[in-house]
């Protein structure tokens, strides 16, 4: 079935899968956003416990999606994996650190004799939520703003230094946060995650005090999110982009490249606009009609987030665009054509991708089974495994 597809079609298929995983990851970062709100929404120990437990049943989905996003990117576009991870070393290591400290915090936080103390694990959750989202946003933004690296496959014949992908400049990825575009996307992701976290609490928690504060937080975070997001998108549409000549593979700078991409791919434009509208609807409806709509906001904003991020990824990689550009050497830029796995591997992986709907189905079923009843203070008292 997949064997007969052309290499380019498979590359496009896999870029879409990776983009979808990236988009799902940003949606699932409601866990991270929620973690930064624990102290603001929870004033008593019980309230904090309710909040942490409602996130604690979902954190592994976010984590697993991150790991799968990495694995799928490695399998389908290994040159990205080797170039970006091995080059932008410090950014990725910082992100990894944020996730190690998260993984243990839920389980260890409230256990007696936990060595570092409950507060430390709560701070770990906060760091993961704040720094993790900002850094991931900034790292993804380099898909549009570019990085400084060179790729020479012939280096493999150099005995003294056979490394193919080499980062140029000493900061090894930290330079990404010196570019205001990258920081703007990082902060937009951060505030979006907080909005999604708030909406998630409105969906799963049954506690009047928490919900009252959540409504205020929704409004507080919506402002900065819109400012950073719109600033980023406007700058993106007006900026030069990295265009690829499909026949020669030559990369050149093109004025208004991303605007051209949007116009050349109307479906992506529609997905993008629809996504943004859904996010806004998910925020506005609960503010306006809280009692009827508060618990539904997450679904609008969540689906909107997935559509928006998905279309942003396609904007970076489709329509003959270099998705991981090098500003040091334009011709080293990564495109979906020059950085992918072989036809054979992409075909084999495509068969595996047929499992994805099945995976989504059982996740949905398990999620539904656990969420049938909202989390409240009484459950925290009786649940033996509460975090």
């Amino acid at each position: 079935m997949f064997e007969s597809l052309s290499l380019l079609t498979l590359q496009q298929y896999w870029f879409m899968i990776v983009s979808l995983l990236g988009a799902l990851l940003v949606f699932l970062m409601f866990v991270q956003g929620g973690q930064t709100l624990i102290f603001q929404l929870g004033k008593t120990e019980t309230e904090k416990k309710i909040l942490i437990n409602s996130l604690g049943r979902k954190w592994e989905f976010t984590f697993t999606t991150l790991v799968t996003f990495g694995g799928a990117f490695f399998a389908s576009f290994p040159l990205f994996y080797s170039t970006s991870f091995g080059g932008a070393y410090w950014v990725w290591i910082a992100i990894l650190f944020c996730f190690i400290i998260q993984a243990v915090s839920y389980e260890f936080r409230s256990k007696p004799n936990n060595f570092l103390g409950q507060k430390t694990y709560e701070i770990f959750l906060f760091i993961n939520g704040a720094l993790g989202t900002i850094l991931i946003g900034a790292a993804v933004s380099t898909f549009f703003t570019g990085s400084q690296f060179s790729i020479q496959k012939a280096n493999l014949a150099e005995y003294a230094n056979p490394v193919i992908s080499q980062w140029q400049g000493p900061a090894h990825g930290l330079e990404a946060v010196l570019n205001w575009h990258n920081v703007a996307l990082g902060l937009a992701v951060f505030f979006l995650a907080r909005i999604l976290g708030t909406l998630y609490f409105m969906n799963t928690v049954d506690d009047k005090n928490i919900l009252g504060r959540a409504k205020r937080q929704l409004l507080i975070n919506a402002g900065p999110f819109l400012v950073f997001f719109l600033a980023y998108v406007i700058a993106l549409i007006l900026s030069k982009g990295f265009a690829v000549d499909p026949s020669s593979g030559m990369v050149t700078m093109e004025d208004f490249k991303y605007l051209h991409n949007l116009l050349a791919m109307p479906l992506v434009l529609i997905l993008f606009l629809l996504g943004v509208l859904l996010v806004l609807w998910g925020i506005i409806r609960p503010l306006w009609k809280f009692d009827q709509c508060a618990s539904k906001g997450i679904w609008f904003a969540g689906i909107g987030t997935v559509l928006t991020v998905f279309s942003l990824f396609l904007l970076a990689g489709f329509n003959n665009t270099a998705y991981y550009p090098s500003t040091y050497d334009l011709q080293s830029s990564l495109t979906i054509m020059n950085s992918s796995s072989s036809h054979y591997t992409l075909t084999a992986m495509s068969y595996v991708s047929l499992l994805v709907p099945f995976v989504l189905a059982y996740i949905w079923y398990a999620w539904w089974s656990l969420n049938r009843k909202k989390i409240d203070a009484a459950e925290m008292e009786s649940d033996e495994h509460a975090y």
Partner: protein
Amino acid sequence: MILNIDPAVVDWSRAQFALTAIYHWLFVPLTLGLSFLVAIMETLYVKTGDPEWKRITKFWMTLFGINFAIGVATGIILEFEFGTNWSNYSWFVGDIFGAPLAIEGIMAFFLESTFIAIMFFGWNKVSKKFHLASSWLTAIGANLSALWILVANSWMQYPVGMKFNPETARNEMQNFWDVLFSPVAVHKFLHTISAGYVTAAIFILGISAWFLLKKRETGLARKSILVAAIFGLITSLFLAITGDGSAFTVAQKQPMKLAAMEGLYKGQRSNGLVLFGIPQPGKKAGDGQNNFALKVEIPGMLSILGYRNVNAFVPGVEDLLNGGFKPEFQNVSPAETETALPISEKIVRGKLAITAFGDLKKARKAGDEVAAAKADSAMKSNFAYFGYGYLKTPEEALPNVPLTFYSFRSMVILGFYFILLFILVLYFHSKNQLQDKRWLLRLMLWTIPLVYLAGQAGWIVAELGRQPWVIQDLLPTRAAVSMIETASVQITFVLFAVLFTALLIAEVMIMTKQIKLGPKDGGTK
């Protein structure tokens, strides 16, 4: 501008990867085995309806949960370190190596993380049977993830099902099934998961023995011991069988590793297996010193285990260094095998392959098809030795012999000791005398650290025994690293070491507290 690779960055990158792998393997074996044991106990609860089994299940499940998260945390680092620290590796073999990692995510991690939530939070929310199914699915998910990462690891030890493509400067997959079902992969998977099962069985035995020593929770302890000892005995026998299979594939595919495992410098026909031995300190290949200060061996046994033939020649480190012997492979007639080359010659051939690759790139760029065809042919005929071309001296191809030797001995001796322990425990349990045998109960408790030692020793054999290769014969560590400053890796090494150690201390403290609290309070505080 090309700066030379600093050898220190290779060492520190190796140290960082080893650190992460060591910590990861402190938590994962328990997850692999305990997930099944918990599922078995819950099955007993559902079958018998006895609430005591539910209490037992929940107690072990609490300990499972404490251990699980930290295995996840160290696992994500391993996956990303392939990129951060082994950038050249990630491109050179990413076309083959990436796939198992992605499949692991899609097929195993989601299964595990979805159903573990039901396992912990679903007791009062889903039906008994759905809960039980979730416990089994969590165990299957954990073990499936082991399958895919071990397939990936095995492929590094025995690269099959691929072909080098000079256009893309990487190896490309030709046959997925060859990668998945290579004999090395099959044995490594079965051997490693059995090690996890034995670890969990001994963990349960040890803690239950502690309860019996303290005369607390004797009912829970006795029931747990019975399940764990039966499970442990079966899986430890399987561990021995798969260990034999693994050693056989090492003899066939990685003879240098086998020589290091045995401390064997000069091989012979009908080679003996060293039962106990002390390798000569400071011994170097070719220095003429005796390789053992002391040894007791079983005659002919190594030839039988490694080649299934008592008369087979087993090459030692010096034989492999100097070549000139005929390797003996199973199902291959001696007439078809070629005399082994000395490593110095392999280095020459490797350099020919690498140079030919460079010439091919230049010729293609210049459009000189005649020169390209010539370079292509030179590269293909020498490609089997490609990785040797990056070595400076033949001695670089030798692993650390004493460390591999001692690790292998420790693992095997401990493995047989575990079998004996399970038999003893089952015997006294059946006689209803276990609670009176305080020496045995203490032994059970103190075997917990030993089972971790055995597991770590096993990985030292597997990973140090194959040095200097990241991909056997094709890519040594020095050609696989990322181009980053040594200082950066030193800093991250220290950061990881401090963080992982702090988390380990936290886990041990929490775990011992939960054990002391016992099942009644298990997980409620």
